[in-house]
């Protein structure tokens, strides 16, 4: 544990050194042309530090607690995918939904919301309707496999909440999904 913290510190310091090197390298470009007097030109070595880079949201790590939202995502799976303009459950969706139904059967106090999502290759309104069909298809499957309907909400985000910002075929395929999100009751 101590080792890993030290290791982290070392990495941080290394990163900081690299960042300040990068700042020095880019400094002459930043000064730019213009009728500025020498006093306005930042001295070498006194350049402002670069703006802080982006950091991802804090993601839970460490051992998976059974019955937690993370347990659901990792061990059941929270996403199933659909073909273009289709809301038929694909063969690769069924094992995921079977696992979701089993998991929800084990943790009775958990309530979920199924979010229906579409790729951007359609109109906003048609996609709200299509996303609702997808969410409902997932919901019906879970209900048919023993999950009480009262534990499942649905919503359609249409094409408005992609999980992949790209527009490649692969990105579009990822964005055609039913996303099961735990609302409450997880441990």
């Amino acid at each position, binding site marked *: 544990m101590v080792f890993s913290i030290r290791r982290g510190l070392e990495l941080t310091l290394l990163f900081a050194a690299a960042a300040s090197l990068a700042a020095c390298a880019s400094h002459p470009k930043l000064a730019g042309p213009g009728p500025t007097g020498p006093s306005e030109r930042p001295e070498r070595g006194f350049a402002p530090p670069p703006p802080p880079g982006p950091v991802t949201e804090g993601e839970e790590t460490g051992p998976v607690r059974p019955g937690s939202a993370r347990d659901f995502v990792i061990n059941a799976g929270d996403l199933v995918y659909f073909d273009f*303009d289709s809301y038929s459950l694909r063969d690769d969706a069924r094992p995921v939904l079977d696992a979701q139904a089993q998991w929800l059967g084990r943790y009775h106090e958990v309530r979920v919301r199924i979010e229906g999502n579409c790729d951007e290759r*359609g*109109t906003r309104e048609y996609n709200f*309707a299509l996303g*609702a069909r997808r969410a*409902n298809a997932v919901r019906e499957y879970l209900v048919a496999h023993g999950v009480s309907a009262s534990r499942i909400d*649905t919503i359609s985000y249409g094409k408005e909440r*992609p999980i992949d910002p790209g*527009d490649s075929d692969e990105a579009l395929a990822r964005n055609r999904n039913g996303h099961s999100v735990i609302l409450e009751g997880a441990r």
Partner: protein
Amino acid sequence: MRRQSLILVLIALLAGWSAAPAPARADIVINVDQGASQPLPIAVSAFSGSPVGGQISQVITANLERSGLFRPVDPAAFPERSFDVNLQPHFDLWKAVSAQALLTGQVVSEQDGRLRVDFRLWDVYAGEQLLGLQFTSTPDNWRRIAHKISDAVYEKLTGEKGYFDTRVVFVAESGTKLKPVRRLKIMDQDGANPSYLTDGSYLVFTPRFSPTRQEITFMALRPTGASIYLFNLETGRQEVLGHFPGMVFAPRFSPDGRKVAFSAEKAGNTDIYVMDLGNHATERLTTDPAIDTSPSFAPDGGQIVFNSDRGGSPQLYVMSSDGASAHRISFGSGRYMTPVWSPDGKFIAFTKQEGALFHIGVMRPDGSGERLLTTSYLDEGPSWAPNSRVVMFSRQTRGAGTGLWMVDISGQVTRPAPYPMSASDPAWSPLLN
């Protein structure tokens, strides 16, 4: 030609648009820089009498130019500059700079502080006055005076109502694709006076103007669910229309402003409903298991065009406004969506998806005469100007953002709408009163 009445020239131009055959596919690719085939050269002189006169002229010039029907003469070439609005211009001098129409005007501050603007519209080749009007308002309202003059000039020279004294409500987009922020915004049709209507704490979509009041309806989406709103622009009062267990979206006013048609979803099935805004009584208009959405009333209120996939793919259907006798009107290849009936009743604008491309197109209400006006990675959501000559829509450029665009119904003039930032779902207001 030179001697021909310029009114006849413009009317012929407009008539040609309506009768134009469906263009060949190659013609659908729009050259943004190409104007209408024969835009009319018009000189808009700086209105005399006050510094605001020059600003009024600039607003008029920009309006007329944006329509694609007019080509403003460069002010640097003007042979005369300062006008007494009551004296005739020297027409020979204006012929020499190829102006066919000339607009002169003057601004007077009344004793009560109000602004009076007189203008004269001249036919340079006929050597006669076509129109003379005056408008009076408070000084801070000078832009609306300019829009009303633009409308008067447009109507006199085209024989059709103008659309410049109008506003546009739309969705201003910010944030990222993964964390979008959507705020309702309203502006004058020329981009002036932009103002936010919602704070971005929830997602908003598809605003629509009431045909009769300063009121809009729109869809809101929160993690807890969807709702449709009425929003009174004069009082700021907002009202949620009903409570629905599933998704609710695609709200549109009836032409009398007394009802809202919309889509609601139950157990995955989306149908079209209509709500009476007086007593909130709701009537279901479609009952099949297909997707039925994007309703739009005919201007007489008797029929509704809508989007349905009951035939296996999204197509356009027309039913009577009580839900009876639905019949399909789109039969071309591809997927047809978001139909919008034109205010004059003659056309239905739509979004068409075919292969990798999207188009804005128009067809007659019986489905004949389909013409595609635009082509891009993603065009959608047409909204008509109140004179049924121009359509505004959203265009998403691949790898870039989404913006507001406009196209005239000939498809000859496609250009960005005067809003330079990311935006979608434009809705054009009726002419202001």
